[in-house]
């Protein structure tokens, strides 16, 4: 008898907290998104028009969010894979130092990190001068462009890409890679037919962990972008906290969550579910 209630007893406080302050609020978000009226007299009215209004008004920001987040995820993957590969197979005694360098940015505040990029990418900075002479900075400035926002997103979520890929590479049995070489596969063939497929769970987890927060982010667009680089997070933040247009903001927030959930479900259908749930959960 004691063994049967014990898990529920242990689970109770945490599950209650998550139900009450995560699941229930999502219901309230949905309810608020169907409110009608003006500020001060919002009332529940099955007002589905909030959704069509919000989507037709802010469709560009939605598209931009997914575009920016998608590109940032792609760039993060291209940067993270060689790094994770180096740490897993080539770093030797430098492994812990490199792993530390990957998580070190987390030890400085997110906002300050992003502001540091504002300094680095400002018009007077040497980095921008170099980019300008290379013809990569149109009209001599990078700040307040879409490129700056994507660069910021790529930087800020890079560790979320590196760590899962490293974890899956590190678990690979080196003998499998050696077997590929013994069977006369070239280094490139071994990589594409052995190493890369075996690290796929890490790549899937990394892309999800990068794409999801990046698509809802509004800090990078706020600091590094201009008015024409606003993402959906900026719209939701401003509607909630500045304009007090709660129903429209709630509708956008709900659509964002639904869109991400659908994307994630499609993605893990192709890539396998253990990546998201973690191997422990199986």
């Amino acid at each position, binding site marked *: 008898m004691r*063994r049967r209630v*014990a*898990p529920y007893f*242990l*689970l109770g*406080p*945490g*599950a209650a*907290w*998550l*139900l009450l*302050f*995560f699941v229930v*609020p999502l219901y*309230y*978000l949905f309810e608020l998104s169907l409110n009608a009226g003006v500020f001060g007299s919002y009332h529940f009215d099955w007002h589905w028009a909030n959704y069509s209004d919000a989507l037709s008004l802010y469709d560009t920001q939605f598209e931009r969010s997914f575009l920016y987040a998608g590109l940032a995820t792609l760039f993060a993957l291209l*940067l993270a894979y*060689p*790094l994770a590969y*180096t*740490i897993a197979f*080539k*770093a030797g005694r430098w492994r812990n130092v490199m792993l*530390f*360098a990957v998580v*070190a*940015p987390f*030890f*400085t*505040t997110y*906002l*300050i*990190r992003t502001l*540091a990029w504002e*300094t*680095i990418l400002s018009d007077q900075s040497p980095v921008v001068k170099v980019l300008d002479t290379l013809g990569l900075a149109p009209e001599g400035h990078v700040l307040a462009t879409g490129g700056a926002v994507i660069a910021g997103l790529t*930087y800020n979520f890079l560790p979320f890409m590196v760590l899962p890929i490293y974890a899956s590479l590190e678990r690979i049995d080196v003998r499998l890679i050696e077997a590929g070489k013994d069977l006369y596969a070239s280094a490139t063939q071994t990589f594409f037919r052995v190493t890369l497929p075996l690290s796929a769970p890490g790549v899937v987890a990394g892309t*999800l962990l990068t794409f*999801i*927060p990046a*698509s*809802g*982010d*509004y*800090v990078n667009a706020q*600091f590094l972008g201009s008015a024409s680089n606003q993402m959906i*997070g900026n719209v*939701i*933040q401003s509607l909630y*906290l500045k304009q007090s247009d*709660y129903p429209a*903001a*709630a509708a956008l*927030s709900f659509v*964002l*969550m639904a869109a*991400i959930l659908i994307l994630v479900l499609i993605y893990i259908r192709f890539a396998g579910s253990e990546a*998201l749930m*973690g191997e422990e*959960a199986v």
Partner: protein
Amino acid sequence: MEGAWRWLREHAVQIVGVLVVLYMLIPIVVIFGFSFNDPAGRYNFTWVGFTLDHWSNAFGIPELNEALLTSLKLAVLATVIATAIGTLMAMALVRYEFFGRRAANFLIVIPMATPEVVMGSALLSFFLILGTFSLGFQTLLIAHVMFCISFVVVVVRSRLIGFDRNLEEAAKDLGANPFTTFRLVTLPLIMPGIFGAAMLAFALSIDDFVISNFNSGTTVTFPLYIFGAAQRGIPVEVNVIAMILFFFTCAAMGFATWQQRRAEKMTSVRPEQETTIAVPAGAPAAT
């Protein structure tokens, strides 16, 4: 020349890897460097001259101190609560087979797969409609515990999975009651996991901006202070405090690693490894 090209080709991956590491560290160097800057105006974006004034005046801005203190208080409370209830959840999930286990796993994963702006706005909607909680420190605490729990569970769970349950059986065989067993055997062994989880929770809480932005009311945390100050120019002292937090976290990481090594030594005392120790004296050493 030929040899140099070959070396570059053979080490291409490492070179890219090291460059990416340097790229990750650039902003930290910039933050550190600009903490010694002596800006001409209110904006600390261009290098003017070197000064130590802002390091000696690190805690000289009252609003900044207050925000930092609020953040620390919030992070400590959120860490304690989230670590306690998250550890219990991890124990339930690893050690028991029960109805609803899959649902519980799902409940833990889903907040980690939700954008912060959705969590923040959902909680704000909840607080607005309910009206019983006034926005401020208490709503921040509720929110921070909420988003920390999942991470605590994941970290502690990974530690519990590698746990040798024979050690607990041994304690019971030696007459320890369940509570003593937990206190003297289980807890010390999973302590590095709990400590790691607590550190992660603390880092997440003290760095959180988005969810706090929605649910803070008029309370100001350290990240919220920075966001507010960004429009009118951020004082250099912010960089100084960011670096102090950075060095503090590095030290805590070092301590955690040391503790982990110690715990690994403790668990390595296992029966199957005793056989290597129990080689009779005088036996030829294995070559």
